[in-house]
């Protein structure tokens, strides 16, 4: 059962998603957090990465394709990596520009963050963005993240030196936003 929302579904990556993933990497506005990648990623490269992913009961990352529920169209990617079990994790997101402004990314983020706190039991979720991406900062704030750190002149993109912006959300903040949920784990040190 994929992770279902109202507007979007998060499902596993499939072979046919290579076109979407290559397109997201080849768009300078969606491709990466801080480093401009050459927009020359090919479908075979993405397919190869998909094919070499091995079965694992204990993965430290999760990769999801975001589908628009009304049409079943794949519109973006969302995932987590660097999981320290029951402790911390970072998330990342890429959405096709034609799917921006419809609330899809916000719901996808909320679904993933919920999965991380409620199913994986982490204490903190982190994300890294930059001062040249106010949309990403605003979106993250909508789903409960706060700016934790700002490193000046740390990122160079589109001809400009930008600040690296680290955002985080701790477990108590997530549950305070979700009074309908009960935290069965809490902070083990308190």
């Amino acid at each position, binding site marked *: 059962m994929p992770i279902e929302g109202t507007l979007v579904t998060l499902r596993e990556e499939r072979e046919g998603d290579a076109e979407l993933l290559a397109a997201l990497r080849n768009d300078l506005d969606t491709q990466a957090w801080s480093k401009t990648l050459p927009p020359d990623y090919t479908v075979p490269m993405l397919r190869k990465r998909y094919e070499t992913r091995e079965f694992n009961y204990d993965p430290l990352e999760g990769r999801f394709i975001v589908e628009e529920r009304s049409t079943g169209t794949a519109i973006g990617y969302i995932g987590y990596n660097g999981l320290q079990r029951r402790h*911390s994790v970072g998330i990342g997101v890429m959405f096709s520009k034609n799917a921006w402004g419809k609330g899809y990314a916000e719901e996808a983020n909320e679904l993933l963050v919920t999965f991380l706190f409620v199913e994986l039991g982490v204490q*903190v979720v982190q994300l890294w963005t930059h001062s040249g991406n106010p949309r990403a900062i605003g979106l993250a704030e909508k789903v409960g993240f706060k700016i*934790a750190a700002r*490193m000046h002149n740390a990122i160079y993109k589109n001809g400009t030196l930008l600040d690296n912006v680290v955002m985080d959300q701790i477990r108590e903040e997530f549950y305070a936003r979700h009074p309908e949920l009960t935290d069965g784990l809490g902070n083990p040190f308190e």
Partner: protein
Amino acid sequence: MNHPELRGRRYLDDDEERPLSTADVERHLEKSKEAKNSLYLTVVVDEHPVGYATVDYGWDTLTPFVDVVIAPDHQRSGYGSEAANLLIDWAFTHLPTTAIHSWIADWNEPALRLSESLGFTPAGRVRRASIHDGRFADSIPVEMLRGDWKAAHAH
């Protein structure tokens, strides 16, 4: 590396505060030998090693990390401060660096004081970054911009 006072501030990859085996330490040494885009150096005083110091710029020379670890018996002798200054000068002189960063746990007050005396400024507080002494600890990234470094060397 297993000195209790160094737990949580050994600046190794994937450093949890667990005791390291000889094999763990050898693995780190091997990794440092092969490391690209970084300097892994031993801090030496009168031909005796007293600690280690690294500059790591990964894929981006804009923002290297500088970390210095001095053996507890040799701390408070100015070695950490001098080693850090040497690496900071090296990075700003040899790399097109805009800012140097380091991450310091919130409980590590000597390191926070040292970073301030070196000219670093706190850039925020990232919550629950590690576990130390029965609690989640925050991590404080500190930064030194090239302009700060230049100004400090202007006189």
